């Protein structure tokens, strides 16, 4: 059975969530972890770029921009 996982890209500006895990592997996943996207960290959506992608997030007191495809790799806890 496949349960649709809530991922970070589904949030809208102003919403926050805690990270559950990062799917996938390789350079993108590693870079996300290095930037502090790890289990338990709280991330807030700040805004979406004029053309709908990428998206600006706020975590650990700094601003991070991720492409939608990258945000899709980040699974978040359901509120």
């Amino acid at each position, binding site marked *: 059975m496949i349960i649709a996982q809530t991922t970070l890209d589904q949030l809208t500006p102003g919403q926050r969530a805690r990270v559950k895990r990062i799917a996938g592997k390789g350079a*993108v996943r590693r870079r996300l*972890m*290095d930037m502090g996207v790890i289990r338990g960290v709280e991330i807030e959506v700040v805004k979406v770029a004029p*053309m709908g992608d990428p998206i600006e997030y706020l975590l650990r007191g*700094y601003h991070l921009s991720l492409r939608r495809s990258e945000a899709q790799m980040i699974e978040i806890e359901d509120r």
Partner: protein
Amino acid sequence: MPLSFTIALAGNPNVGKSTIFNALTGTRQHVGNWPGKTVEKKEGTTRINDYEIVVVDLPGTYSLTAYSLEEVIARDFIVNEKPSMVVAVVDASNPERNLYLVAQLLELEVPVIVALNMSDVAHSRGLKIDAQELSKRLGGIPVVETIGNRSVGIDKLKRAIFELATREHPGIVPQIAYGDPLEAEIDALQAEIEQDELLSQTYHPRWLAIKLLEEDEDVTGRLAAGDHETVLLTARQAAQRILDCTGEDAETLIANRRYMFIGDVVSGAVVRPTTAVETRSDKIDKVVTHRVWGVPIFLLLMWILFQFTANVSTPLLDWIGGVVNGPITRWALAILDTLGVEGTWLAALVVDGIIAGVGGVLIFVPVLLFLYLAVAVLEDSGYMARAAFVMDRVMRLMGLHGKSFMPMMVGFGCTVPAVYATRALENEDDRKLTAFLTTFMSCGARLPVYVVFGAAFFGDKAGNLTFAMYVLGIATALFTGFVIKRIVYRNKPPQPFVLELPPYRLPTPTSVWLQVWENISEFLQKATTVILACSIVIWLLLALPINGDADSFNNVQPQDSVFGSLAGTIAPVFGPAGFDSWRTTGALISGFIAKEVVVGTMNQVYVGEAASSTPGEADKTNPFRDDVGEIVTGFGDAVILTAQEIVNIVPRTVNIIPGVHIPEADWLNQQEEKVGSSRLEGALVAAFERTAGSPDKGRLAAVAFNVFVLLYVPCMTAVAAMRQEFGTRWMAYQIVYTAGIAWLAAVIVYQGGLLLGLG
């Protein structure tokens, strides 16, 4: 204790690492590349008491993984060169993510000093950091508060460096505890590594054990090559056990533990404001990356940047050109005169080869000056990251990064600064691809060709040809980007876009100027050789006679020279494109020196006008004093005109709006002089008609020729820039590809036109 030692400077991007580097070393610095890499390496020296300290600026990185070239360079330097210590520059307003790098430095078991930078900014955002407490929680490593751009805390930092270096017992570097079951596996693996003498001498055993469990590609690759299969096997088994036991891979667990360690450190030493204050940076950002205004603001800034590189730099460029071709050439001739070698091949080599070549390098200095000024301001202010944020969606279509837009835009002015502008991109592949595509953005020097041909063959519809060429250039870039992404980079794993949006800052003049100066002096050092060699070779080809009088070295008509016969030999290649005369081919060859030369050469070969009037014949009473006067007043005029061009950005920008017209400033009353080229136009129409066979075919061939000029090999300076940035192989790829696609496109245009009945 030696009186000299080496320290390394590490830190995340955008934390003011270069301001600390500059404050430490002042002007005693040297910029080069890391051996065999295109990544910039900065080295400088500083004196503390009697010690001469070499400071190596490591590339700015967030981490020390094997996934990025910069990170591998940084950690290789620490592992192999074993600096006495690493000064980690930490952004005080963003301690958590910054300390992640510090945690990895500690794993390398190198002595670390933390420079807590920009503490003023942190204070203004309501962050309170207790440096002493931070030091205590980091196991006693020194923590010094600094404000790099104002040189605050630099003396304290120097004292800390001195104390740590001269300490009898270096002290224990704190270790991060990874908890169960990782710790046991690390210990076991470490023990096995310690058995291997070679391994434990090269690496710190614990660090190596951690890297092996993380399955670090670089380290495992090196061990596999070094025949350490048993250690690798043990590591793989251990990693598997960890995965089985915890359900998570070691890489994730280790990253989590590092952040837990940091959480502990920060929790007792940093007090965050209870409510987030909206900073000035946030307010600026709301406007600059606004849903509606974001793109127009971006385009406006790029337009201004383009104006700076394309128009504002022109007066100084003309001035340098004038000085080199006028006074300097006259002086050289005068000196050669007194040596009694005037009129010989030696004089010609000096004037037409060497001085022309050096002049060719120097005229790019104003262009690059304005480019680097603008780029340094965009970069230091924090806007560059926003530009990438706003434009990423569009650029991704070409397989590029949001930051690629800026170099492409600069490319419409000049390809040379465009190639250097790719330095704003972090990823090597993105940089290469972007630089590769900038040459298809039709540069300013190619424009005169379209204008002359447009007027000659299309009369009052001349503008259409120019417009079509710009569109074709962009289309070719799109096509090439698409092909390279789908075919050449097909098997490359996706590169992270993951981009920090740093807070906006006011750029400091010192930092901006240092960047401008470094980049320009590097250009002068590196580009000169290639450009000088090219112009000497071209001169030689033109001077060597092959037909007619064999003794007339340096005194031949172009068609009798090696150059002419070379052009004649190549010419048939352009048969399918309809313009296979030695004259057009010659113009194309000389276009390799600089695209500006194409029209000049055509004037020479079609109209027979001696374009190069021999200088030095003016009957002046005191030529030297007049020349100096000319240089000085010329410079004064150039400065005034530069200011005028900056002012003129406003009318040029506003005039884009249809129906609006603000006159441009013309302070020195220099009306645009129209170049009288009607004779050339007539000669061109006749010549193309003759070669192709009929007026319609001639026109088609002319369009094909313009297509070729648009797409073929950029000028030698651009080629030299490519070589400097990406190496000889990439330069060769570019020459072959541009020549190939230009020929193909020209043939398609001509033959396609014939098929459609246009000829």
